[in-house]
């Protein structure tokens, strides 16, 4: 699971959960897979991203020094930051770990890079 995916995941579907975001991420095993950097795409993706979840992903991935805690105004002009965002969001691959619902504590395991977010019938 790439950390870009993490930014879009929520446990909102659980019965009684109001926001379910951001999920609490734990990484037990990760890989780094190089992929081609496209600054224009990262820039277009920015409005869709939740910066607080970008930052928390950076903290968990031990890349917090690369990413400011609050979104700067001029990200599009900062090629270096776009490159760092690309690395964080598209090159870090979480192989083993878990995601935890911030409201209920329900844990979703990540196994072989695939998060299991399937809920039981009595949870929805």
């Amino acid at each position, binding site marked *: *699971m790439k950390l870009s*995916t993490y930014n*879009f995941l*929520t446990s909102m579907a659980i019965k009684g959960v109001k926001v379910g975001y951001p999920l609490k991420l734990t990484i037990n095993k990760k890989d780094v897979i190089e992929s081609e950097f496209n600054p224009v795409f990262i820039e277009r993706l920015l409005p869709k991203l939740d910066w607080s979840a970008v930052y928390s992903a950076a903290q968990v991935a031990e890349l917090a020094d690369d990413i400011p805690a609050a979104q700067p105004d001029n990200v599009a002009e900062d090629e270096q930051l776009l490159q760092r965002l690309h690395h964080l969001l*598209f090159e870090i691959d979480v192989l083993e770990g878990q995601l935890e619902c911030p409201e209920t504590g329900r844990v979703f395991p990540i196994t072989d890079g695939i998060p*299991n977010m399937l809920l039981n019938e009595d949870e929805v």
Partner: protein
Amino acid sequence: METPHTEHLSSADYEHVYEPAEDSFLLLDALEADLEFLDTLQPCLCLEIGSGSGVIITALAKRLANTAHCLATDINPKACEATKRTAIRNEARVDSLRCNLTEAVRRRCIDLLLFNPPYVVTSDEELQTQQLTEHPATERNLVFSWAGGTDGRRVTDILLEQLDDILSPSGVLYLLLLQENKPDEIIEQLRRQKFEAVKYMERRIPGEHLYILKVKRLTNQKLTLSLACYWFGS
């Protein structure tokens, strides 16, 4: 668009995962035919529901390469694995995720949504007596890939009800349907939900008449027109 390599999947995989067939290829052909539109749409986040073997989302991810983020969901763990393997085999960037429809994804984020649903008309009992198992035995989980209940629309109808919460403001859905799923009824239902749906492509194969429905939000202007037609028509 290149047809992805699938030789890494064997008949043993297809005991648990839907094997690409005419319906899958029709959806691929529709995307290929609409590439010019997709280039204008510039989708940031693409998602395929029920990705199965992963051929469709892989072909798309390969074409969009580093201009989009592609996600695949499936309830069947074997399908999630197969999708991941297909993406890796074809050097495409796809993240595989086990969940029901788009349940685990934030609201109104998806710019391009693909769904080849379980569309075969079956009795609802057929689905109810089935239980998705952790260790899928032959056909036990595969039934969920094709059995569609009454009108073959049990799952499709659930998705369409949620569509407003799923698609981004400019989001588009390509949905595969069978004549028996009553596409005209679906188009009408979507219009009431303020979506514009057209039969983008159709194909007759032995025993099946397949359609690709292309669905997007009605623009304000079209919405006014459509409401006017509805008003004067009733």
